């Protein structure tokens, strides 16, 4: 007797896939879900009622109204009388500004401290250890308060402290040299920045791949950069360094950081550099001693061992942790509200106080931070799938 094999469906259908996603106890789960929905509906209804009682209409219509408060400093042009939407955008820009500068500086300082911790010099390593412990065991908000108090206790500009004649510390702010580039339109520098980033990424990829043949390419890229600079200079580009200098009662020139921005930036950078130095240290120490020994046995020089053997492996550990500490720094920048720097949370808080639309203000804060967090974790998942897991499977 022959058995007839019935051609079955090519895969599980939509309904059965949904059923297997829901899993056991579908009824009880649905009840929980409905309960959560009802709870939120109840709370939402109460909130709407409370708002109506105080004469507010729930919704985002207030965003187009005039905001009658000033913002201490802002990257986007803003003045009292512009709309609330513009005020919040200025707040977001300020958050992004402190986050970007904070991440850059914290990386530089953190990597330097991490290397110092590994240097094998007892004094330097113990000093960095003490620094890390001190910063990790006191609240960040307290550190920010202290930095803010220190900066406000500095002498006025006339008697400002100065380092190397180019950095001035005063109670009106911190002044650092700035590089200004003239004769260069956005149409040129934007593409060149993008190109530079791509070049850096390509170099980092080569480093990650651990190929020994990347040096010519680096030289090639450097040569290309020099040629580009010369070409741009030929088109009338001049770069000049503007060093601040004391003039009368104030300090002129350079890049001036307001006391609030300076306190927030210093506080965030110093705090994050402690975590980053630990990440760098543990990342490099995660490479087993056998790897160093094997590389040495193959006759590689110390610099080569670091570049070709240790760093490519350590970076796999370091990168995800580093990105999560960048995310922490960005979220921590919300403490700006406590020391008077007008970041997103601070502007949203002012908006909530002047309009009474607290719910909407908090929804905006949450939405902005969630977008950043989820975008970063999506990139992280991609990185993990491409680099970390691939490395695990080939091991």
């Amino acid at each position, binding site marked *: 007797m022959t058995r007839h094999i019935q051609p079955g469906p090519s895969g599980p259908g939509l309904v059965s896939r949904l059923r297997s996603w829901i899993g056991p106890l579908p009824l009880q789960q649905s009840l929980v879900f409905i309960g959560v929905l009802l709870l939120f509906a109840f709370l939402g209804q109460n*909130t709407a009622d409370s*708002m109506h009682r105080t004469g507010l209409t729930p919704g985002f219509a207030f965003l187009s109204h005039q905001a009658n408060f000033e913002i201490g400093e802002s990257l986007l042009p803003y003045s009292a009388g512009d709309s609330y939407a513009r005020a919040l955008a200025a707040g977001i820009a300020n958050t992004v500004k402190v986050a970007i500068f904070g991440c850059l500086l914290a990386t530089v300082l953190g990597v330097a401290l991490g290397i110092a911790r590994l240097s094998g010099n007892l004094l330097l390593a113990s000093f960095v250890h003490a620094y890390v412990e001190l910063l990790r*065991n006191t609240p960040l908000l307290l550190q920010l308060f202290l930095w803010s108090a220190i900066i406000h206790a500095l002498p006025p500009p006339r008697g400002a402290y100065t380092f190397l004649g180019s950095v001035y510390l005063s109670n009106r702010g911190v002044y650092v040299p700035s590089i200004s580039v003239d004769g260069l339109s956005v149409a040129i520098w934007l593409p060149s920045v993008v190109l530079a980033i791509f070049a850096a990424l390509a170099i980092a990829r080569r480093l990650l791949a651990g190929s020994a043949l990347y040096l010519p390419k680096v030289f090639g890229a450097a040569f290309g950069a020099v040629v580009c600079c010369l070409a741009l200079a030929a088109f009338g580009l001049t770069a000049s360094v503007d060093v601040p200098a004391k003039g009368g009662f104030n300090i002129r020139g350079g890049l001036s950081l307001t006391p609030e921005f300076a306190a927030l930036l210093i506080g965030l950078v110093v705090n994050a550099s402690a975590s980053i130095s630990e990440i760098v240290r543990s990342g490099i120490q995660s490479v087993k001693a056998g790897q160093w020994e094997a590389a040495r046995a193959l006759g590689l020089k110390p610099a080569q061992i670091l570049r070709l053997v240790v760093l490519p492996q350590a970076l796999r550990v370091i990168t995800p942790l580093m990105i999560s500490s960048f995310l922490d720094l960005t979220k921590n920048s919300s*403490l700006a509200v406590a020391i008077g720097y007008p970041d997103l949370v601070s502007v949203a808080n002012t908006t909530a106080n002047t309009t009474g639309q607290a719910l909407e203000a*908090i929804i905006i804060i949450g939405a902005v*931070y969630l977008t*950043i967090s989820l975008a970063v974790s999506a990139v992280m998942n991609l990185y993990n799938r491409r680099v970390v897991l691939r490395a695990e499977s080939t091991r």
Partner: protein
Amino acid sequence: MSQIELAPPVAPDWHRWRQGLFSGWGNGLVTLLSLAAILWLLLPFIRWAVIDAVWTGTAADCAAETAGACWAFVGAKLRFMLFAFFPPLLQWRPALVVALTLALLVISAIPRFWSFRLVPLWVAALAGGWAVMAGTLGMAPVSTNHWGGLPITLAVSIAGLAFAFPVALLLALARQSDMGILRSLAITFIEVLRGVPMIAVLYVAMLIVPMALPSGAAIDKLLRAQIGVTLFFSAYLAEVIRAGLQVVPAGQREAALSLGLSRIQMLRLVVLPQALRAVIPAIVNLSIGIVLNTSLLAVIGIYDLLNAAKTSATDPNWLGFYSEAYIFAAFVYFTICFTGSRYSLWLERKLNGAGRA
């Protein structure tokens, strides 16, 4: 046969110092350069904090041109910084509660005393502490609006951990479960709370919760902040516990089920003991994070340790000694958290060693 344990040879101290500081030309140079840098950084601070400091006296002594740090201020405002606006005559209450809490913490930190009997003890301590602070049983009542300082920092941290634990356990189990709807709810809750800054959660507790309650109902401000802190940390704790659950091999569950245990029994007797044991050090680290982050209560106007220290410098008699106040608060936080992080390291070594043996 008895085993003889030989300790590894240890180089004498001076030898290790010389090796670490002057093993070669390069190292010696690094030592000298870092010594110079450290002195350059620290000498002005030491000058301010020790040499020029005013240890006793009044604000007038501290106002002198040459005066450095005004530690007399810390002496004068010590009770305010520790207990804020608690009525001065009744400050033995928060002092007693803090002392008993610290004693209980030390007892709970010793693995020998770990048992479920600690749970009712802590419940009793939390309830008793609240009763003594608020003033029940014929004692003069003190409103929570007057509570402040170190007791608030400790109470919010400990209650935050205690209440966050069951929530986090359920969230972690839901996130690991094969029930899609529950899993999605848990993931949404965890990712939303981990994605926003804590200050946003505290704003919700302060500004939105009063509006969201039915009209007429009201929750105490401190309690609202406590709920915010608890929910915020339950999301982080859930991820810590989930990491522990992932450590338990699937074979353990399968073996437990094949022995005829119910799913609840499997969790309670097989999975959770192993999972939680694996993450105890991580939980201790998270608790340190809670203590540090309760300082954010200062932003929403609750007088925790940091806010009490900040406010103490607004006393008209002692105006503007912010740095001294913050350094004192930093010292208290550091003592608590550094002890905690050393303990966590010790515990990790101890538990790992026990696991291997």
